[in-house]
């Protein structure tokens, strides 16, 4: 498998505080990769570096091209959908308008309509609430909206930042089911940041564990799941 996304010795931080101290990882075309680790390990910063939300050195390549100095809008237009921490829902807008923001750059009308049908099939509740303000949605519904909107961008890679945060276990299950379906049916690669390591590892082909801005452990998803010392010391279950 060729790497769709590659990070090579990435250093990044906010002002004088550096957070990442040389992170290297890769996401294969169509693969699911988890990024695990404690709070403050640099998971969110890694995702933000990829879409240009934070200054970095080293190299980040997407589909063979370096993303150095590229503004966020351009990176995203190349096919990376980033569902940020806190979901990035525009609460002043309706559900429908949020979805439209996902598809507004696409010019393939009939395909867009198909994607809308698919999204509403995955998340029927969004169809029911199309005309309502996004601020009226529950946390789980907002997460669904964020994933649906990312899907409508028809990305090659989705970056998901803690999709389970603050959600009931049942809702988490169904959202991960859908992420898995999306990955399998549309060949969208996923880089998943999660606190909930157990559920993340179940669906990942490989995983990286970050510890204070460095990759501490890297291996296949099942390998990490089975390795008790890794589980105990890094994943906490």
């Amino acid at each position, binding site marked *: 498998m060729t790497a769709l996304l590659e990070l090579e010795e990435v250093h990044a931080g906010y002002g004088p505080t550096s957070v990442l101290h040389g992170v290297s990882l890769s996401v294969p075309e169509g693969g699911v990769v988890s990024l695990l680790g404690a709070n403050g390990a640099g998971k969110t910063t890694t995702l933000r570096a990829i*879409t240009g*939300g934070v200054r970095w050195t080293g190299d980040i390549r997407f589909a063979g091209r370096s993303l150095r100095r590229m503004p*966020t*809008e351009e990176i*995203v*237009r190349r096919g990376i*959908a*980033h569902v*940020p921490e806190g979901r*990035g*829902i*525009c*609460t*002043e*807008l309706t559900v429908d*308008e949020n979805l*439209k*923001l*996902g598809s*507004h*750059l696409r010019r393939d009308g009939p395909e867009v309509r198909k994607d809308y049908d698919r999204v509403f099939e995955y998340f029927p509740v969004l169809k029911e609430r199309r005309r309502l303000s996004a601020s009226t949605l529950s946390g789980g519904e907002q997460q669904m909206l964020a994933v649906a*909107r990312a899907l409508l*961008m028809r990305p090659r890679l989705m970056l998901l930042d803690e999709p389970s945060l603050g959600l009931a276990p049942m809702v988490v299950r169904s959202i991960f089911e859908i992420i898995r379906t999306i990955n399998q049916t549309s060949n969208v690669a996923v880089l998943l940041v999660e606190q909930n390591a157990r559920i993340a590892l179940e669906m990942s082909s490989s995983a990286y564990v970050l510890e204070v801005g460095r990759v501490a452990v890297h291996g296949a998803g099942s390998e990490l799941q089975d390795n008790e010392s890794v589980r105990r010391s890094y994943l906490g279950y």
Partner: protein
Amino acid sequence: MQEFLQLVLSGIATGGIYASLALALVLIYNAMGLVNFAQGEMAMLATFVGYALITRGMSFWIAFPVTLVLAFGGGIVIQRVVIKPVEKAPVLTLVIITLGLATLVNGLAGFIWGYLPRTFPSPFSSDSVDLGGVFVSYRDVGVIAVTGVVLLCVYLLLQHTTVGLTLRAAAHHPEASRLLGVHVSWMLALGWGLASAVGAVSGMMVAPVLFLEPNMMQTIIIYAFAAAVLGGIESPLGAVVGGLIVGVTINLAGAYLPGVGGDLQLAVGLAIIIVVLILKPNGLFGQAAVRRV
């Protein structure tokens, strides 16, 4: 009663003028959380440009859209050249910059055209039409129609087009919008262009009533502030409703409250600002500012 209706109607006409300028203020406030103190002066400059076109023989109805287009372009240039380099500066810095911009534009207009008041041709006949005892001037009807159409166009643009959608998203959620591929910085420029064009409408409409001179908009901007604050500084609809309320209120107060006509009219505008800020700081259509911690 007839007099009352006449006052209300001409109040709506001036209210439409305040509403246009108030909407311009709201558009920029939404985009950058900042009141653009140069909005009135930018409208005045655009009106002078329109005046230059008309005195060179262009008819009003051609000069009007041409002026709006030029004002739109001018707004974008101002955002790119003056505002963008300091985009991330603290709000107070930006406020001072817009104040400086106001002085600069005012001085520029004075330098080019001088400070002598000029008559600006009205596109509407000064006759009145008798509607069942209420005399309605064509001027008032014309101003209401023009501002009504412009405001409707802005509404349709913002609410029913993709550009409008990305404009609103960029204004409220710049970070999230960037992640969806919206060119946020250009959207801000577009917002400035739009505000500048809408403001120019108020200048072109008020110039035939007042005389055209560099300080022409300085009272109008106070009423526009009052309208924007009354409606809720973040609400485009509020700006329009606020503008109409302020226009009618001032007209009625001038006629019925002893001593308010003339010089004290401006005080009514300021009184509205103060009363609204005390009683209902978010205005009629504003939402209470909620921050999640």
